[in-house]
């Protein structure tokens, strides 16, 4: 039996998080001048830690450039982090034979990704069935078997194999192409699927189809998701827990209801209040925040949100707020949430 057809066993048991991400950092140098010297650094991901429990969906939200996709690429190991570690079902990722742990090749099979751009991620010259069968064949699955599996997956994502298997990507609508991308991500029977803005390019009626499909597939194949989106309503719909990022850092994290009903970080509060009102009777007069998110090249000292925060005090510029535990796994990196931080409203929010 080939590896691609052996669903990976649960090793650590249900209490062991599927993925533990510890203090992940990735800085991009910006080169300039005659000799290509580093003139600045983009702190794209700057000390991000989180866990993903088995069978849950972790939503990641935040504005453009806050580091969501870079975090996903680091978790996928499409690029190496500057520092930080990944622990997958209790095993260190990418450690060598001496130290034990999970070899990269094996990890990459168990973790797959779906991108926003459904067109760019498919080979235009391959019928979609062959695109889906490609990775399993690389992993040693025989052609006929890989094709059979590809057709099963096409059926699972709602594309009748008889009429779709031999089509090329340009013969599909955007929603259909995204279904193919999802089928392809599932071809190696991964345990964790990273979805980076998977429905952002789709129309609302198609978005609903794909979200229903994702919910069904998760159930059917026992998957765990990391779901990245800038659409706060979609993240609320799909996630069990939510992580809010701001300029390369985690601002707040917790169960979905805690984040949406009792946001503790001023940034989360402003982000949620920025959603347009579906009800014309509830129009806003003042925007929750002014200005644009600052540049991750020279992020503000201390709390990175302080340049836009209505509650900023001198302490916020002096010290970076540590994540305060608010109970039930709800964390907020704000001096107001941390008793004794020196902020005049400190501890007001503590559990």
């Amino acid at each position, binding site marked *: 039996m080939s590896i691609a057809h052996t669903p990976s066993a649960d090793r650590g048991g249900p209490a062991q998080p599927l993925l533990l991400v510890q203090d992940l950092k990735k800085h991009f140098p910006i080169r300039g001048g005659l000799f290509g010297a580093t003139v600045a650094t983009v702190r794209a991901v700057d000390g991000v830690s989180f866990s993903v429990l088995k069978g849950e969906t972790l939503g990641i939200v935040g504005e453009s450039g806050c580091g969501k996709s870079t975090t996903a690429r680091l978790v996928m190991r499409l690029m190496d982090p500057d520092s930080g570690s990944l622990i997958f079902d209790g095993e260190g990722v990418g450690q060598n034979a001496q130290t034990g742990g999970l070899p990269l090749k094996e990890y990459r099979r168990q973790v797959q990704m779906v991108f926003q751009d459904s067109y760019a991620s498919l080979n235009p010259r391959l019928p979609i069935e062959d695109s889906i069968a490609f990775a399993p064949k690389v992993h040693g699955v025989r052609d006929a078997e890989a094709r059979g599996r590809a057709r099963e997956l096409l059926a699972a994502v709602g594309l009748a194999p008889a009429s779709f298997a031999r089509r090329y990507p340009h013969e599909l609508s955007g929603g259909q192409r995204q279904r193919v991308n999802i089928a392809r991500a599932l071809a190696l029977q991964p345990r964790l699927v990273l979805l980076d803005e998977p429905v952002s390019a789709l129309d609302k009626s198609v978005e609903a189809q794909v979200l229903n499909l994702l919910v069904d597939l998760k159930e059917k194949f026992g998957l765990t998701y990391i779901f990245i989106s800038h659409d706060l309503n979609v993240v609320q719909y799909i996630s069990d827990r939510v992580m809010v990022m701001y300029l390369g850092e985690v601002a707040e994290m917790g169960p979905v209801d805690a984040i949406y009903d009792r946001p503790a970080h001023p940034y989360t509060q402003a982000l949620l209040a920025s959603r*347009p009102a579906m009800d014309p009777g509830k129009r806003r007069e003042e925007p*929750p925040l002014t200005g644009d998110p600052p540049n991750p090249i020279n992020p503000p000292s201390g709390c990175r949100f302080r340049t836009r925060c209505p509650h900023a005090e001198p302490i916020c510029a002096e010290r970076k707020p540590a994540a305060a535990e608010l109970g039930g796994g709800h964390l907020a990196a704000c001096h107001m949430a941390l008793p004794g931080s020196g902020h005049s409203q400190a501890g007001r929010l503590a559990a």
Partner: protein
Amino acid sequence: MSEVLDRPMTEKAATVPLVRMRDVNVRFATRDRTVHAVNGVDLDLAAGEVLCILGESGSGKSVTMRALMRLLPKFARVTGSIEVAGRDVVAMGEGALQDFRGGDVAMIFQEPMTALDPVFTIGRQIAETVQRHEGLSRAAADARALELLELVQIPSAKRRLAAYPHELSGGLRQRAMIAVALACRPKLLLADEPTTALDATVQIQVLLLLRRLQEQMGMGVIFVTHDLGVAGEIADRVAVMYAGKVVEEGPVQALMRGPLHPYPRGLLGATVQPGMRGKRLTTIPGAPPSLDLAPTTCPFAPRCPEVEPACTVEVGPRPRRPVPGRMARCVHVAGGA
């Protein structure tokens, strides 16, 4: 006091509608293929009114806007009548069009770099427009540029006059494009998804800014979006397009609370809103029709849960107006034309 805000309105709101489109059709015919992009659109806009055009990708929203401004490529076949402020847009010659664009009517886009010239400073671009359309002196035009940047709430406006578009952040660039569009105080602003690419906290700022400017300047606005929330935040009236037709139109509140046509009803049900967690989303099966042929009967019939034989017989379907101000093209809606 303010040169931009205080100039008198020329047209009287009640007499002539600002925009009147009747039976507008747009067809793109190339050697390989014909696309019937817009199929019999009627639209009215009163002065000082905000109309949102809602619809999925490819439903003809942008083409309708471009037809209004005569910005379509030469090979596009446009029929029907288009009047803005009582003037026949279809009959305008090149000179009149130059006057019309940027004077009576201005347009803003999703991507500001398509409207801004990368080699001129923001201040120069605004002043240039004002000089060309209103024949102001350079000094007066420069003063107007500063006033406009302040009007769109660009911080340190004086310094930003000398900035090139690429030196501004996304939100500021969008504001700069709005300033250029408002330079000659248009009566009509066409906005094609101007906030779609912006971050949540910036989008709401730009929406509220547009709403305020629209009220202060008494502009008519047609705002294209595929986001129901954006329509809820800014529209007076909403027109929903499908396959190049307006299938429903009405006041924003009434339409959002109780759409008459099955398509907007499906769209509303498929839009994820707070409080839907754990519930299965309703979907609209299938996909919009290819527009290789112009739809004659109801274009939504292949996807409609309420389809019946009559739907594939009646041409149009003809518009129904069950209550004043509301219109739906569906055989199941009561009411005369």
